[in-house]
């Protein structure tokens, strides 16, 4: 039985797809059989971030409508044998995701994989609620910014009331906070909410902090999950995040701004 992880946020543009791609790749690199599913029907992007957009033949909706089998639709990643991608449909609308059918596909995936990573669309509409309904774990991706934090809190409310685990009175979904686009220098200057601030407001366990990084755009330009860029701060931060998710106790990095010397601060040009 696979563990089902939803990557959610409410607000758009905070780094859900980047995170889904990085986490799935990271898990697969540790030898875990991993499938990553794009729930953003109508606006598929995960295939682009994973760099497999030209290999899409069948999609999630085809599998739901039984127009293709799961094996026909799954795309095997060329860099890692343990990783498969199930792309979203570009043409249908989100209502194509019926609850029972989504459940059937996830159950079938559960048989063959250790982890199923669900990349949720933004918002709280049908696609987003379907992505989280069957989840065992939720990674709430949040930027240190007021509207993102508020939306994350809203998602926590939905996770605790409108999931299968909630409806069946099972153990609740495990919720993790992933803070992205973090800029320690702006935090030091008092212009950005700190990790502690966001944690205090949302009262969530912190899974990781991903620093604002040029590497994220470069990686998406090239269709390479940023976790594969082991030289970059963001890549390393995602690597640590995956380790923490798998239960390793690793200190958080990239939380402090690089200290400038007294003189360079004094004479800053």
């Amino acid at each position, binding site marked *: 039985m696979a563990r089902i992880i939803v990557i959610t946020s409410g607000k758009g543009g905070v780094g859900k797809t980047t995170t889904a791609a990085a986490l799935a790749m990271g898990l697969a690199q540790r030898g875990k059989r991993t499938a990553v599913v794009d729930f953003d029907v109508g606006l598929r992007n995960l295939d682009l971030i994973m760099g497999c957009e030209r290999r899409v033949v069948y999609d999630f909706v085809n599998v739901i409508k039984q127009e293709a089998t799961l094996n026909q639709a799954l795309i095997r990643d060329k860099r890692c044998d343990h990783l498969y991608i199930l792309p979203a449909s570009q043409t249908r609308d989100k209502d194509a995701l019926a609850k029972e059918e989504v459940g059937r596909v996830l159950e079938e995936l559960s048989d063959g994989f250790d982890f199923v990573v669900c990349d949720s669309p933004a918002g709280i509409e049908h696609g987003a609620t379907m992505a989280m309904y069957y989840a065992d774990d939720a990674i709430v991706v949040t930027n240190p910014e*007021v509207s993102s934090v508020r939306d994350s809190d809203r998602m926590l409310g939905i996770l605790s009331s409108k999931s299968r685990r909630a409806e069946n009175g099972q153990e609740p979904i495990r919720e993790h906070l992933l803070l992205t686009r973090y800029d320690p220098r702006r935090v030091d200057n008092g*212009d950005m909410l700190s990790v502690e*601030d966001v944690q205090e407001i*949302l009262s969530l366990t912190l899974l990781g902090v991903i620093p604002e990084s040029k590497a994220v755009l470069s990686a998406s330009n090239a269709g390479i999950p940023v976790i594969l860029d082991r030289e970059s701060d963001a890549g390393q931060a995602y690597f640590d995040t995956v380790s923490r998710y798998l239960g390793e106790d690793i200190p958080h990095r990239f939380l402090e701004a690089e200290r400038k010397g007294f003189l360079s601060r*004094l004479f800053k040009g």
Partner: protein
Amino acid sequence: MGLLDYFRSSQPKGSANVAKERLQILVAHDRAARDRPSYLPKLQQEIIDVIRKYVDVDMNAVSVNYEQEDAHEVLELNIVLPEAAQQRFAP
């Protein structure tokens, strides 16, 4: 950052404090609204209708508050009767 700013840097500054305060209030409010039973507005309306049978009060005269504490919930009703109402009930 110039020389003066460097020596001033221990003072609270920036907009993050404001953001945190606003969020704390907002999130507390959102959570309270989330946990509230959905029948509350209807309950409030029906209570007002009943009271209006006897006393002429306006919408704001009845407030319904719902609070959740550790082991129990408190439903608080506050009805402000107009002064003239006392006469109507007088024998």
